[in-house]
């Protein structure tokens, strides 16, 4: 806290020259209109911060401190316009003087120029809320709740609170998006394991029953439960006639895999799948044809990337130096204007995800069967399967990436895969599998356990990755939750204090006829409601039923 001792204002705002000794006392400035009362307030703010709020901010586009700070008669001589403020820093019990000229507002002369005084000055500059014009006050009184919340947060320099909340939220959202992809990979691995184990539903009891049937055939002890390191083929190497050395096609497994792929190909031809793709393709094409939306979408993507790549010092596009707060405020302001197009994009992305998942499942199924190709007595060329699987994986990746939109449309326009070519090759493989001599029960059981274990391990890997990502999401969500809890409570306390102090001041000033005046600030997410009750009729916004006189009184 400081107490002003003396102030010298020269050729500044509406004042030619004013020297006042305030002696560190409280003071009020009064006088007829146009005599420079506001100029004194501007001078104090200018001396302490180098800024004049009335000449900056919204609606003051053509006004600047340099051009409009000096007295109108000295407007071309900013070097002559200065304010010298002598004050006492109460905590340090020390007196200091700060002098600023309009010509060089960022280079004040401070006497004494030591660290303690400088630190005190910096602290004051962080709190510009000490200067509020009547125009600003009425703005807080009459603003809509969402605007009021924004204005009050800016006044209290709370932008950083919102910036940190935004970043935490963004990280949570990004990690959640990653979970979706890992969930899909886990689902693909699970389906593949279910096929291999010949079970119809995912149940430990069913798995143990099927696995133990094969283990009994091979003379292996039954498994009692499935733990994180359980192996279906435990003891297999020791079992008679059960060596794993020969690379061969597990006939029973291959038949099941072929059936599974056939089923997936049939699903591609189902009406609902075709219709769903057609509708989404039309919406994507319309979105792409709307040049305005497309431009905005590209712009939105650029701004999001800029926020991500910004290193707290330079713009990632043009290398211009930016202060973090200013850069983020500017980019976020631009992003606000693109909210509608962003929402449209997110809805489309959500509809596309099931298609991407189908492609990934189909690609995995093709990959599984492609592995059998070289194992036949006369190897079968499975390049078609490999090529189609790669095509589908690339398409799925593009669908998940979404931008550039033209690439996503292209991925949609192309056939999901060359079904005819796949069917021809699948028939060839199926025929070759059928021709494999029927293996003994022991070989079938051995193949079952080996392949089942391979797929179990893949499922475990996918599950582990998913679990890690879920832990990350849980961690960041908890941090975000705690942040919201603490910030809301703290802001509520601040608003409650303001509410009480404001009500008490109003009652004192208007004690003759409005001593029961009540005021209520109601904060909620992104809003700050304000209600006043002059005569016990209930709380209403200041602009609702009250006269301009009352509104001025509240200001």
């Amino acid at each position: 806290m400081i107490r002003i001792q003396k102030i010298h204002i020269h050729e500044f705002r509406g004042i030619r020259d004013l020297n006042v000794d305030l002696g560190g006392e409280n003071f009020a400035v009064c006088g007829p209109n146009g005599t420079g009362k506001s100029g004194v307030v501007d001078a104090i703010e200018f001396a302490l911060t180098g800024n004049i709020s009335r000449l900056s901010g919204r609606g003051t586009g053509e006004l600047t401190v340099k051009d409009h700070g000096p007295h109108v008669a000295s407007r071309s001589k900013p070097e002559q316009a200065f304010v010298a403020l002598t004050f006492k820093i109460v905590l340090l019990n020390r007196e200091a003087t700060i002098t600023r000229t309009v010509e060089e507002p960022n280079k004040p002369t401070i006497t004494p120029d030591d660290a303690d005084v400088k630190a005190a000055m910096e602290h004051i500059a962080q709190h510009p809320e000490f200067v509020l014009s009547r125009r600003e006050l009425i703005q807080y009184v009459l603003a809509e709740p969402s605007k009021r919340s924004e204005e009050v947060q800016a006044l209290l320099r709370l932008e950083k609170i919102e910036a940190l909340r935004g970043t935490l939220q963004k990280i949570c959202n990004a990690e959640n998006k990653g979970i979706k992809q890992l969930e899909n990979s886990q689902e693909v691995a699970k389906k593949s394991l279910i096929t291999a184990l010949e079970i119809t539903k995912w149940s430990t009891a069913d798995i143990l029953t099927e696995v133990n049937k094969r283990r009994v055939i091979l003379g292996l002890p039954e498994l009692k439960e499935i733990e994180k390191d359980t192996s279906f083929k435990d003891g297999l190497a020791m079992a008679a006639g059960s060596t794993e050395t020969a690379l061969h096609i597990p006939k029973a497994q291959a038949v099941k895999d072929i059936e599974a792929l056939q089923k997936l190909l049939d699903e591609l031809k189902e009406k609902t799948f075709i219709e769903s793709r057609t509708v989404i393709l039309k919406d994507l094409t319309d979105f792409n044809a709307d040049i305005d939306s497309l431009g905005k979408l590209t712009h939105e993507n650029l701004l999001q990337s800029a926020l991500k790549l910004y290193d707290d010092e330079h713009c990632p596009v043009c290398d211009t130096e930016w202060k973090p707060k200013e850069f983020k405020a500017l980019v976020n302001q631009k992003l606000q204007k693109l909210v509608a197009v962003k929402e449209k994009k997110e809805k489309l992305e959500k509809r596309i995800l099931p298609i991407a998942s189908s492609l990934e499942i189909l690609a995995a199924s093709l990959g599984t069967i492609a592995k059998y190709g070289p194992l036949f007595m006369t190897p079968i060329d499975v390049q078609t399967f490999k090529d189609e699987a790669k095509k589908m994986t690339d398409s799925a990746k593009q669908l998940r990436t979404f931008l550039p939109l033209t690439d996503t449309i292209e991925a949609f326009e192309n056939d999901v895969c060359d079904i005819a070519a796949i069917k021809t090759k699948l028939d060839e493989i199926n025929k070759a599998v059928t021709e494999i001599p029927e293996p003994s029960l022991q070989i079938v059981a051995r193949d079952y356990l080996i392949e089942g274990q391979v797929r179990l391990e893949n499922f475990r890997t996918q599950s582990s990755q998913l679990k890690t990502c879920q832990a990350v999401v849980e961690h960041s969500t908890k941090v975000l939750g705690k942040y919201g809890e603490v910030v809301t409570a703290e802001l509520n306390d601040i608003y409650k204090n303001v509410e009480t102090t404001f009500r008490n001041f109003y009652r004192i000033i208007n004690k003759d006829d409005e001593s029961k005046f009540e005021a209520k600030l109601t904060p909620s997410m992104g809003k700050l409601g304000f209600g006043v009750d002059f005569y016990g009729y209930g709380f209403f916004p200041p602009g609702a039923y009250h006269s301009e006189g009352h509104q001025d009184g509240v200001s």
Partner: protein
Amino acid sequence: MTDKKHEPQTVSDKIIDKFLYALGAEKGFEDTAARLRKKVLEDKSTSEKAIRDALFGENNS
């Protein structure tokens, strides 16, 4: 404890300081709170990279 050099000055920093104390008091979040304090209050950064590093550790983000 916040040392004198890094004592929060602004209303924002004071609120964030309280959040970090509350977070640090949660079991398993002590290190995260300490890293966030360093990034947000001392380095004065709220960039995505800085906050990711603080949340998950620089080797895990």
